[in-house]
């Protein structure tokens, strides 16, 4: 057995050292009626060669998806990942380490996370970041719980219905047992959240997503004003952080908490996970942050170094009073995101974001010229909605047969939008790819 180093004679030596007659004897503290009597009914062990062919067969059994030209976005995005990233993240000093409880031998992880926190804060325009959350949806749920901790006496929050439907489902799961109320805010004719009817003053927070599920860039500055007038915290969510390479950051528009999914930043799509929950806020809310944080300090010689800090908020000290139960988060994914942001750089990110916007804009205009209509007038980034002359599922099925996954039919989530298709075009799509999309969708 290649992962088990023990030879038979070593096992015998060790058994005598511990005073046991056999391996079975080691389990004598477990009474007979707790013991399993049958052997594990699992397939025979595979050799590495057998495992390779088994896994390869599964990886290839993905229907035509591997060769398909896909314009799916909606929370998971296809971006170019530099080869250097895959190489660096494969360094086993990073990936075979645990949470950095011993800072003297974990400076690699700790400095990488400190740098991630800094880059995330700069990207989102806020003062502090945590060391990551599970994903975008759980980050939003935790942001709302944090707002309810801050506004002790309030027990309601408001969510835009233009937030990713899965994010709203996760929020419901998290908030329901605590008895918190969720108020839904509609979207207006331009595809942006319509806050005009919101006049409740018992809200701990109001959350919008930008760009939202329709790809529409929200008026964050306007929303911030309105939300703060209601004495609530303003939470902004996102599924596509690359947008902030170009667009004003949530912090600069007045967000108190910005949270969302960081998968776009160099992380493979992997059928939806692992991704990266990002979470940034203002310094004044630092001690209410969920999850772990890394801070800068010095060693006994005065050398700069990094440690996990503010642990008194956490589950292993505050137990039931902790700001969250998070122990493992997405550390390696946060490191990858930092590697990605470092590789692209500030100048590169702006250019890349521009290119994403321009590709999508080209496809959008071409589809409009080919007979689709554009239902929402708000500006968009790399994702947008078109209205088709027929049912979107029908168009989807027909395109898929031609090897094109044209986007996401929105009727699945929004009754009434059955003829609407959400399309994403990133830098990975060439003009020719976009022309193919237009031809297939409009035919």
């Amino acid at each position, binding site marked *: 057995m*290649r*992962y088990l180093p*023990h030879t038979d004679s070593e096992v015998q030596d060790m058994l005598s*050292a511990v005073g046991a007659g056999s391996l079975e004897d*080691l389990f004598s503290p*477990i009474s007979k009626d*707790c013991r399993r009597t049958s052997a*594990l*009914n699992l397939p025979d062990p595979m050799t590495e060669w057998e495992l390779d062919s*088994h*896994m390869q*067969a599964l990886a290839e059994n*993905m229907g035509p998806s591997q060769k398909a030209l896909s314009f799916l976005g909606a*929370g998971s995005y296809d971006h170019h990942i530099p080869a*250097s990233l895959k190489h660096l993240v494969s360094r*086993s*000093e990073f*990936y*075979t*380490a*645990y949470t950095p*409880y*011993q*800072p*003297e*031998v974990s400076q690699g992880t700790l*400095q990488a*996370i*400190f740098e991630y926190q*800094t880059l995330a804060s700069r*990207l989102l325009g806020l003062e502090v970041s945590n060391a*990551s959350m599970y994903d975008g*949806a759980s980050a939003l749920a935790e942001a709302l*719980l944090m707002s309810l901790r801050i506004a002790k006496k309030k027990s309601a929050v408001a969510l835009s219905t233009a937030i990713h439907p899965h994010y709203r489902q*996760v929020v419901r799961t998290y908030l329901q047992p605590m008895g918190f109320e969720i108020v839904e805010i509609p979207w207006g004719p331009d595809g942006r959240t319509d806050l005009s009817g919101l006049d409740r003053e018992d809200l701990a927070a109001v959350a919008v997503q930008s760009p939202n599920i329709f790809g529409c860039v929200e008026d964050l500055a306007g929303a911030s004003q309105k939300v703060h007038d209601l004495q609530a915290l303003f939470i902004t969510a996102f599924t596509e952080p690359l947008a902030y*390479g170009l*667009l004003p*950051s949530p912090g600069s528009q007045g967000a108190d908490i910005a949270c969302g999914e960081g998968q776009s930043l160099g992380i*493979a799509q992997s*059928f*939806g996970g692992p991704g990266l929950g990002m979470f940034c806020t203002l310094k004044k809310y630092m001690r209410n942050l969920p999850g772990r944080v890394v801070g*800068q300090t*010095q*060693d006994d010689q005065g050398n700069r*170094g990094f440690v996990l*800090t503010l642990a008194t908020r956490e589950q292993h000290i*505050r137990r*039931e009073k902790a700001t969250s139960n998070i122990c*493992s988060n997405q*550390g*390696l994914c946060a490191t990858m995101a*930092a590697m990605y942001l*470092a590789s692209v*750089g500030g100048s*590169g990110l702006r250019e890349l974001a521009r290119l994403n916007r*321009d590709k999508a804009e*080209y496809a959008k205009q071409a589809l409009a010229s080919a007979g689709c209509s554009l239902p929402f007038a708000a500006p968009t980034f790399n994702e947008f909605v078109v209205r088709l002359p027929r049912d979107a599922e029908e168009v989807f099925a027909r395109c*898929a047969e031609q090897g094109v*996954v044209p986007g996401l039919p929105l009727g699945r989530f929004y009754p009434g939008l059955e003829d609407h298709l959400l399309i994403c075009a990133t830098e990975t799509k*060439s003009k020719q790819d976009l022309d193919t999309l237009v031809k297939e969708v409009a035919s």
Partner: protein
Amino acid sequence: MTEYTVPGTSGLTMNEPLLWERGREGRCGFSLPRRDVPETELPAELETPGPDLPDLSELDVVRHYTRLSHWNFGVDTGSYPLGSCTMKYNPKTNEVQASRPGFAQAHPLLPASMSQGILQLMHDLQTHLAEITGLPHVTLQPAAGAHGEYTGMRIFYAYHQAQGRQRRKVLIPDTAHGTNPASASMCGYQTIPVKSSEKGVLSVQAVKELMDEDTAGIMVTNPNTLGLFEQNIREIAEIVHDKGGLIYCDGANFNALMGIVDMAQIGVDVLHLNLHKTFAAPHGGGGPGSGPVCVTSELEPYLPVPRIIADNGKYALSDDFPDSIGRLHTFYGNVGVMIKAASYILSLGPDLKKVSQLAVLNANYIKEQLKDSFYLPYDRQCMHECVFSDAWQEKTKVSTLDIAKRLLDFGFHPPTIYFPLVVSGAMMVEPTETESKEDLDRFVQAMQIIAREARENPDILHQAPTKTKVGRMNETMAARNPCLTG
């Protein structure tokens, strides 16, 4: 003779500046795709100069992270006996499997017809985890162990809701993992601590006294954080079930029990597993993990959606479970981690039992070899980990922290320290089954030398570590004056 040096170039432990101390505006380590579409105008109010991120070349980035990696201790670097974290060897083939393009490039919203391979892998993994635990229904969605605990508590909540009355309390033994109380309280439960007996396990009496009809159930870590099997679990389960409660088992320590114990048989209703511990998926210095939850048939309706359904060899995801607690993750959890665990299970098959046997052998071996050097508060046959304390070293003012820091100088990652809380100055050692006898002997030897140093020359321990890149960190300064960004 004068020694000439260039700042920052002393051997291999060069100082590495922070990313933004390295950057020079105008560099880019990324190959931007060629522009083949025209530029478009952006509304003026949306036009910004872009974020303030450093610009670096590809080599800048490669050297930066390669150097950072040198200052990190991983399982591939050396022994990592961090109790309850199960830092076993992570087979390299698992990485190969997870990075196959068919899996790594799959979009989570692809229709089922385009994702049969990954759905089948996930379905098979569920089946295998059900077989390994004895609990027939599984969700893979939770993204970490504590996320699994939370899922379990949400299932408790939904179950009692369906019984017509919500309960307010959950019992939590003092030997449970630290995340358990936080997970229960996130569902609004009040947590009631249960003291373990002088033998280090739960007594039937203690549970009997606390269990009532306002208690939703109990969260038991089994084996517990003293490394002991909760041997009264069957009787405890009866008491809890009789009062209408449920048994949650924190299965983070399942590495000791594969092929040994059937969880359904001992009365467990809900159990989470840590794929990043028991099933050899690496932890990544802080995650991603994965915390599948296994339940009895009675609790199956409450599992989170979406769920994988199989029909005649065709797989699909379904949301159509009206009693479900709902969704817990944007998509289906940490699929990449699931692939690694599936690959591990397929590599070992029924030999997983051998894994647990050798994990328990290694822990008992260490316990026996070290019990003359360090105080062993519960001197009993242990499972996959054992707990010592600094009671004997205290006399020369040497603490668990000093011992841990001194171990770093010997090239070992220290055990988990100051946990579990029931042992003052605890050191929880979990060698795992992948450590060879030679490596265990080396660890024992280092610990014995440290015990001698503690008697003869305690200052060596107070000043440790001296062979790491940085010395002991000022944690108080970090917490009093938090600096979270540069």
